[in-house]
């Protein structure tokens, strides 16, 4: 166990809890944990862009929703095998990410935020106008996908499949950010010009991350369509994009695990407060403001520090010095 280190032990404890606790608590909590794993996966895709590449996307819900629509529509058309439907959903989301990314990555900083938000809204209106698919109301998905002969109708089975996919996504993302490619994107995050000067043009690298993150969000969306057996434009709304960003920040960006904890916190906060009031957003909004203004770290950061499991590497600067310096250059526009 000594080889694992404190960080490894912490991760192992979290994983053990995720495997053992929900089914032990019962169906309600299993379904709740499934939701956490799905939103955690979507938030993780945001973290790949935000924490590792320095791209603040306000449109990830669109790619999540596209995955949900693709999986839901395929099921309605009778493609029930998950091994066909889910990869197709991922592919469709990646194609959307390629289209959105190739245009929005031409911009940077503040503009990138607004452009991703705008394109996501465009996809939202597109989904809303699909009258054959329920328009604004969305449509119900008749059944869950199946893994060949394994049915996913059982909530516990489905939860374990989702959890396994989440672990797989975390592992793959870890491989990506630790690879040479990962070093390049972190270099681009820290200083785009320097990365370009040493021979790594930012645009194609950023586009690749954008498409990968789109694929992950698409898988999360496909799982959501299976979990809720219902798909609607609400899954592409700009609020969800913002909530995914909030999950990443609540949990700690640039950590892969943080976004999942952030999703857990967000959903638990909503769940607990909903017992007392339908107006839980009244409390979540100020909480988000307070997190941004008053706290320096998210949940994972605090947890790691509390257990003394810090990694021996320089913490990433997430105030985007390069991007803000870029945007903060003299800008006489307002006067003209």
């Amino acid at each position: 166990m000594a080889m694992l280190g404190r960080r490894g032990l912490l991760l192992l404890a979290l994983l053990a809890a995720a495997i053992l606790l929900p089914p032990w608590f019962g169906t309600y909590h299993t379904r709740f944990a499934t939701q956490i794993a799905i939103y955690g996966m979507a938030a993780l895709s945001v973290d790949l862009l935000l924490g590792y590449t320095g791209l603040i996307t306000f449109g990830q819900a669109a790619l999540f929703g596209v995955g949900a629509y693709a999986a839901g529509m395929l099921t309605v058309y009778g493609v029930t095998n998950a091994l066909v439907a889910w990869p197709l959903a991922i592919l469709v989301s990646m194609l959307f990410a390629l289209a959105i990314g190739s245009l929005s990555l031409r911009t940077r900083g503040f503009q990138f935020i607004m452009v991703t938000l705008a394109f996501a809204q465009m996809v939202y209106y597109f989904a809303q106008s699909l009258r054959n698919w329920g328009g604004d109301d969305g449509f119900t998905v008749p059944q869950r996908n199946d893994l060949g002969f394994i049915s996913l109708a059982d909530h516990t089975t489905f939860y374990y499949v989702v959890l396994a996919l989440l672990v797989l996504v975390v592992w793959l993302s870890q491989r990506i950010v630790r690879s040479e490619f990962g070093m390049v994107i972190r270099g681009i995050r820290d200083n785009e010009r320097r990365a370009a000067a040493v021979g790594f043009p930012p645009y194609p690298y950023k586009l690749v991350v954008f498409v990968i993150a789109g694929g992950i969000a698409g898988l999360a969306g496909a799982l959501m369509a299976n979990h809720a057996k219902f798909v609607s434009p609400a899954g592409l709304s700009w609020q969800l994009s913002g909530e995914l960003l909030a999950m990443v920040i609540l949990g700690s960006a640039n950590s892969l695990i943080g976004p999942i904890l952030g999703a857990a916190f967000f959903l638990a906060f909503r769940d607990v407060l909903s017992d007392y009031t339908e107006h839980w957003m009244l409390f979540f909004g100020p909480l988000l403001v307070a997190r941004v203004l008053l706290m320096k770290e998210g949940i994972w950061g605090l947890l790691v520090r509390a257990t003394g499991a810090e990694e021996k590497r320089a913490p990433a600067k997430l105030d985007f010095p390069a991007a803000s310096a870029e945007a903060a250059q003299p800008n006489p526009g307002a006067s003209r």
Partner: protein
Amino acid sequence: MTLALLVEQLFNGLQFGMMLFLMAVGVTLVFGIMRVINLAHGSLFMIGGYFLMAALAWTQSYALAVPLAFIAAALVAVVLEIIVLRPLYRRGPLDQVLATFGLTLFFNEAVTVIWGRESIPLSIPPFLTGSVEIIPGGAYPIYRLVITGVAIVAGLLLYLLITRTRVGALIRAGSDNREIVAALGININLLYTLVFALSAMLAALAGIMMGPLLSVEPGAGDPILILALVVVVIGGIGSVRGALVGALMVGIFDTLSRVLIPLVIQTNATSALVGMAVYVLMAVVLLFSRTGLFAAHRG
């Protein structure tokens, strides 16, 4: 399609464009001066409508309710600037986006708590009902003409404020180099509060005037905010002139595409195309210019 219909739609486009201008110019001013992207700007639009509704119920008079709603929205903006915006000036875009998004969530829920989830219809002021013939055979609602006029006057006043007054000179100086303005002994905090209140009042003005046309409901400002962001992207962030040109482009393009596309293409996808037209416009602009039409100078 008759000429009268075309003229009517052009007027609608102008009216919608001017409303978007009132919104977009606030976003662009706040960015230009304070380097803050304010996602809560849509909330100020929404609050304008709600305050008008509440003030009307209280005073039963448009002449009293409009100024009251206007002042109340400005007060909310001042409080907001002091409590939340001020600490954000030195933060990165991520913090700004998240905090102002949190504010939007708060305001959307707060109006639900106070006034309920249902949308509330507002009637057009009685003295502004009816229509006039703008060209032979084309009647046009007076109310829409009036709010277009008010928006144009507001835009002109803003232009005069920025180009002809001392405060305007400070605003221009502040957008060029805030450190030097502060070093010259100008109270930069006061200037920032003023600019934020100004942008909020323009948003509230749009919200007040659009109240009777749309309806007042939670989240009413969100779609308008996103369109205003599209305007800012097209016009170039930080540029007032860009906001005007972008807003008129988006307003007229959106309105005309809603009329023209269904005439040309009649399939199931028509409504999808109509809703997406504005974003396609933005994509085309981005293909030709990464920083928008009236991009601020860089480097």
